[in-house]
């Protein structure tokens, strides 16, 4: 598998609002045969109806809330799903139970992403199924259920300062199929869909989406970011044609700069792909970063086709703590969830590894007596 790249998408000039920078991605040719599930379109978005004859496959983004169930209660899609357009069954989802008062406030028929921590926990649980080999140290619960949903620090877009306004005043380009969201110039999320109509339907849902604490803090404490204003050297211009060429060059320069430098962390990352599903020419995979510390790491889901053209992408920027936890889990997974070999691979003592597992909040994965044992050893000062 090649590296992640924005194949088939062109970068357009960014639009800035306070500390938020939104970079539009435009497709020359929209993808017509993969579209947002028509049931989502029916949910009263007011966009042009999708022509059933041209649509062959559809997708439902992860964490997407809609009235999937027959009894009309809202549910969230669990993991992005790729399916036949004609497939009318409810997708694998998590029913949402609201308190009475909340349910009244929430408009059930609006397109939105799951406004809870659930989506992120789901991500982690999806990515890590738990110990694959039943070493004696792991608890029953860890073996049976893997990583159970746990609270991850994440903020809805509404809590990220300036994001709601930035999305509101953003002027969607014709043919726009994606956007990169920056807070204080840290890449917060990448979002790409196959068709401009899908994008228009989903643009506002970005405010219901999840952002890590890093992004929240950057947006909160960061200063407004400057625009990259066009600059043309006056001395070199002799005619209007020169001026036009200079203007065009500005645009290309920006696109190159953005893809190489600003989105470098996302596009230049070292990813592991897990294939989930293949349908027609399309392939849904999950994106796992290398969990290297001190650099921006993104997890996400993507759909691409045989030619490597990117159809759908959605990423979540991990915070430093989450990267650390992920690092620990990948190390464990790489060593078949065996404590001794993992500790050796990390170059630390077993007691230290167990301490780290507990500090990362994964203590419940280990049997209680094992934890007590290591804790006692640590207290005695032994290794």
């Amino acid at each position, binding site marked *: 598998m090649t590296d992640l790249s924005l194949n088939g998408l062109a970068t357009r000039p960014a639009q800035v609002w306070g500390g938020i920078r939104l970079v539009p991605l435009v497709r020359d040719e929209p993808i017509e045969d993969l579209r947002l599930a028509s049931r989502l379109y029916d949910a009263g978005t007011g966009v042009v109806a999708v022509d059933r004859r041209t649509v062959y496959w559809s997708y439902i983004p992860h964490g997407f809330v809609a009235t999937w169930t027959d009894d009309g209660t809202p549910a969230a899609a669990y993991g992005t799903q790729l399916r036949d357009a004609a497939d009318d069954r409810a997708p694998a989802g998590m029913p949402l139970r609201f308190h009475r008062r909340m349910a009244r406030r929430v408009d059930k028929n609006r397109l939105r992403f799951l406004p809870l921590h659930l989506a992120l926990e789901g991500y982690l649980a999806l990515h890590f199924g738990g110990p694959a080999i039943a070493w004696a140290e792991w608890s029953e619960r860890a073996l049976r259920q893997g990583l159970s949903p746990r609270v991850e620090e994440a903020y809805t877009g509404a809590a990220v300062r300036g994001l709601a306004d930035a999305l509101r005043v953003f002027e969607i380009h014709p043919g726009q199929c994606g956007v990169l969201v920056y807070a204080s110039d840290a890449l917060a999320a990448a979002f790409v869909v196959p068709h401009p109509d899908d994008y228009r339907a989903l643009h506002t849902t970005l405010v219901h989406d999840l952002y890590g604490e890093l992004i929240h803090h950057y947006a909160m404490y960061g200063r407004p970011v400057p625009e*990259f204003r066009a600059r043309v050297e006056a001395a070199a211009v002799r005619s209007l044609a020169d001026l036009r060429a200079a203007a065009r060059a500005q645009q290309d320069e920006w696109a190159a700069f953005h893809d190489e430098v600003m989105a470098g962390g996302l596009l230049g990352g070292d990813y592991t792909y897990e294939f989930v599903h293949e349908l027609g020419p399309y392939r849904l995979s999950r994106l796992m970063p290398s969990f290297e510390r001190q650099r921006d790491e993104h997890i996400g889901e993507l759909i691409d086709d045989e030619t490597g053209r990117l159809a759908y992408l959605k990423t979540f920027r991990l915070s430093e703590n989450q990267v650390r936890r992920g690092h620990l889990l990948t190390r464990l997974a790489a060593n078949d969830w065996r404590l001794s070999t993992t500790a050796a691979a990390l170059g630390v003592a077993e007691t230290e590894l167990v301490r780290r597992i507990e500090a990362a909040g994964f203590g419940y994965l280990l049997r209680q007596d094992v934890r007590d044992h290591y804790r006692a050893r640590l207290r005695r000062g032994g290794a």
Partner: protein
Amino acid sequence: MTRDETGADLIAAEDVLLFVNAAITATGQREFHSGADEQGLSLDFLHQYLLGNYRDLYAATLALDVNDHNAVLIARNLLVTASEATPAQRRGEGRLIARRLDLLPPQRVYGLFRDLRRARVNNRRTRAIIRDWMAARPDPAFDAVKYRSAVKDAVRHAHLAPGGELGPFLFAWGRPAAYTTPILETWRRAHYEKAALYDLPYTVAEGFAARHGVPRGAFLERIAPRLTRLERLRLQESAREHGAEAVRADLTTMPLTRLASYVLALPLEDRERRRAELTEALRAAARRTAGEQAGRWGTVAAVLDDSFSAYGSGQKRRRPLAVALACHFLMEALAADYTPLWLSGRADALTVRPYGPTPLGERILDGLELAPDRLVIVSDGWDNAPPGLAGEVLRIWRTRLDPARACDVVHLNPVYDAADFDVRRLAPTVPTAGIRDAENLVALVELAQFAEGRTGLPELRAHLARRVADFLREGPVTEVVTPPTREAS
């Protein structure tokens, strides 16, 4: 004092021009990029600043084409701080305010009076202004019915004695068994009799219709002859949905910008279907507005903003786009040879809608390539694809490619930017003027040319004095408030 006179003068001139731009465009309503609070706060600051520093210039702006919202604010601020003015200033202000109030719609004036009452401003000049304005109303009984509580407040506030039956009508209603004034009698009967309410003004009849449970469609059908011109325009579409075909606005008599707003509010299919009718109405309004200037502008290219931000806000729906559309038709009438350049690249003006980014730089280049006599840019100035390119293009055009100014470039901006206390500018070399109604286009473009070189305060004062003199002369002489001699001492 060894103050640098010219420096201070320049700043004063700039402040005044800044304020004029704001007072033409800002209405204290929500805009695309800022909320109503920010707009109000920002505008209020400008008013206080100008009032505190240049009181006479501030008053003089009443003679310019400032919008109604700001005219009311200026009048209010002047009256609230009347004690700070010299007697001569007060006299001048009184005449300006009185003249301006004659031009304002009555509901705005009544609003101002109530506002003064709330602010507990009841000086002699305020009372004189209220008294004279109310005395000049053509039909006090009609006002008393249509603006009943406002009239009541004004009368109370200014200690006036309403003549005839108005006293009992306003303050002791229900007392007389019958009125002799026809409209008052109709109003009394409308409480009991459905047929009577159709002789009342629409806004009053609406309440009675609801009370009598008259179906909306039937009500609109019968009230149609009583509707004012703008009510007719506003209600036409909803009346059609209710099956009241009698509500028909004569589009050819409507003011240009209102008409453009109306057209933009129609769904695209309707605009397509009624293409001939709408185009003809817009052209007629444009021709009427252009007057004798029609066809005198030479070759004109216009860059017109139909980016998403031209939507305005929920409060000012599609206002920036409506101004652009109205300007389009007006320039078509003014120019001998006219090329419109919409930002989205569409060629058909009638089906224009706010969508997409703002690639101003590229479209300005397209416009300059046509080598017109005049390039007019109508945009809110949020150049974002890429940002700042319009400014660069205009700068290089002026300094390198057209230093002789063969082509006049003017930027007209319909949106007040609350954060900058001004309308957003594109480049320092290109004059930017605020615009509220396309009808003022000609005056604004001329004024912008005049403002291109940096205007000194003496020129500005002279210009304002001329405008004030014209403004006061236009009005009927009887309107002038003559203050009692005691006050002047």
